[in-house]
């Protein structure tokens, strides 16, 4: 019998299962991982330092590019930190719009996660299904902000604009039959809210569809049950948050425990895992999609009945309307000051945390009273999770590394910043 020697293997940074640019140096004995050393930082863009050189509002767009599958949630953390420093009241309608888009973003993120995780460990079909639903939500993003991904929609004090009254439609083309066209446009005849409501009605059945593919699937269970088990004590010690923490059985959700915006008025449940393995985290995230869908529905109902302003009317930090600007001197001055210099934020520091789809996303801003932040620190959930990767993969097989990368829901935009 030949002797098995341990050897070192390089995984990534260009590898489809590395979810971006993760480089792992693995010490392997046979197929067993002895030690893993993740190298991150290949996507480091110094977002925080860039934010220090720009007026507050100009960095909102950078936040989208952190975790580029849950764009609006990143913005939410950033604008909340500024609002805390400014002491701004956000209009109720804007709070509902933000909660609705946070939850739409949560669904977007979890769909991306489910599709990619499935693809990583051998389930091709679910990827196609997930992207079908993501497409509708991307259209919602586009309708409200003009872009499919990097929305830059939230502002300190509210959101950039109110929800549109019409939904963009597919146009006729020689590649599309009339029948196809009317099917694609069926839900798009009304307003954006009509489209979202139609989506919330369709979506639970879609989740059922994903579940029939995976939940009782023998191969799926073989790949995920008892893989990457984290005890609740270790999860807290390692700084886990979000589904990673709840998968281990810790009932902790900022939306319930430290509610921000109008989450305290929403009716939803927090799913919690039992064993802390990849399968439990899968179940938690799937249930979160259903709960997010419930929240979106409640927001749609409220938003239909309650028109109103969507941004605070204090023109010291939110610009006046175009019309006001054209015929009111005071508004013109405000407009000029805001778009040349920005606004000064009082001296102080604030830490604003939100329940991001991946966990606790927080922005810590130190202001010295200038029109630019003195220090911005982004606390990305994924950073704490991936730091525990070495511990989670130890003793598992090489193929399980991919399952564990998948279950951590890693996006390098936010880890490397």
């Amino acid at each position: 019998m030949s002797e098995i020697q341990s050897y070192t293997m390089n995984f990534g940074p260009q590898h489809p299962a590395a979810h971006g640019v993760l480089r792992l140096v693995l010490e392997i004995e046979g197929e067993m991982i002895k030690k893993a050393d993740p190298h991150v930082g290949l996507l480091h863009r110094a977002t925080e330092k860039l934010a220090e050189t720009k007026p507050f509002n100009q960095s909102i767009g950078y936040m989208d590019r952190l975790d580029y599958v849950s764009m609006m949630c990143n913005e939410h953390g950033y604008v909340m930190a500024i609002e805390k420093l400014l002491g701004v009241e956000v209009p109720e309608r804007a709070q509902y719009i933000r909660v609705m888009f946070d939850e739409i973003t949560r669904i977007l993120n979890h769909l991306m996660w489910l599709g990619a995780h499935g693809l990583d460990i051998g389930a091709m079909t679910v990827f196609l299904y997930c992207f079908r639903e993501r497409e509708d939500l991307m259209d919602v993003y586009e309708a409200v902000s003009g872009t499919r991904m990097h929305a830059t929609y939230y502002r300190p004090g509210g959101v950039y604009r109110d929800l549109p009254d019409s939904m963009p439609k597919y146009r006729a083309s020689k590649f599309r039959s009339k029948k196809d066209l009317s099917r694609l446009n069926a839900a798009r005849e009304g307003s954006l809210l009509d489209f979202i409501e139609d989506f919330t009605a369709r979506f639970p059945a879609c989740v059922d569809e994903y579940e029939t593919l995976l939940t009782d699937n023998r191969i799926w269970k073989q790949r995920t049950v008892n893989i990457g088990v984290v005890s609740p004590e270790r999860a807290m010690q390692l700084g886990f948050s979000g589904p990673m923490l709840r998968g281990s059985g810790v009932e902790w959700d900022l939306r319930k425990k430290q509610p921000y915006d109008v989450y305290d008025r929403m009716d939803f449940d927090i799913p919690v895992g039992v064993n802390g393995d990849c399968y439990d985290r899968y179940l938690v995230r799937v249930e979160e999609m259903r709960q997010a869908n419930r929240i979106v529905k409640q927001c749609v109902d409220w938003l239909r009945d309650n028109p109103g302003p969507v941004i605070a009317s204090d023109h010291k930090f939110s610009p006046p309307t175009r019309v006001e600007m054209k015929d009111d001197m005071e508004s013109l001055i405000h407009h000029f000051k805001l778009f040349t210099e920005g606004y000064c934020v009082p001296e102080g520091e604030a830490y604003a945390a939100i329940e991001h789809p991946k966990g606790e996303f927080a922005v810590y801003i130190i202001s010295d009273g200038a029109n630019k932040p003195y220090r911005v620190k982004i606390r990305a959930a994924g950073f704490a999770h991936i730091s525990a990767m070495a511990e989670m993969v130890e003793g598992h097989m090489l193929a399980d590394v991919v399952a564990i990368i998948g279950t951590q829901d890693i996006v390098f935009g936010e880890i490397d910043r």
Partner: protein
Amino acid sequence: MTDRLDSLAARIDARFGEQVNRVASTCRELTYELDKDDLIKVATALRNETEFGFEMLMDVCGVDYLTYGMDEWTTNSASDTGFSRGVERESVILDEADEFDPKRFAVVYHLLSIQNNIRLRLRVYTGIDNPPIVKSVVDIWNSANWFEREVFDLYGILFEGHPDLRRILTDYGFIGHPFRKDFPMIGNVEVSYDAAEGRVAYKPVSIEARTLVPRVIRDDNRYSAALKDGNDV
């Protein structure tokens, strides 16, 4: 929420007394500054004693206070001289002093107690040491491991007792600590592929630093502490 913060503050004051120093906040947050020699003792107590129960360390953040409160464009005499786009940018001079200002670098810890549902911020100044150094809290909260590596990488703050203090975000072989305020925004070197040599080559940067919007600080009486509502300290 404010009641719970106050009661926690009272308990911390009673337990640690002179060791910690509460910092006023306008955003209903609890911040304490402490001496770096007391850090381990206080942190251990905050985690282990049930009346505090801070079982999670959410974030470790480095701060460089070198240019705190400085602006690039004084507007006081604007009515005499007229507004101009001329920005007086401080030229970047590498700070190679043997000793730092005692309040130059700080490490900020954000703690979370799940059992008591409360947050706490600790700030530790690194003092005059060059390179700056504080004790590592990895043994108390394991999540500090990568957070401290990040602070070391970006600010050059050393953590005594850290098991594996390597760079984490910057490139292999990177020189300098990029988030220090004396590190230029445009960097020091640029990288390109040298076809003749057949390898990647480093050169001094060829671009020039520019400021699109100058940094200004305005006195705004709306933000004075006496007038501000919700001021709880």
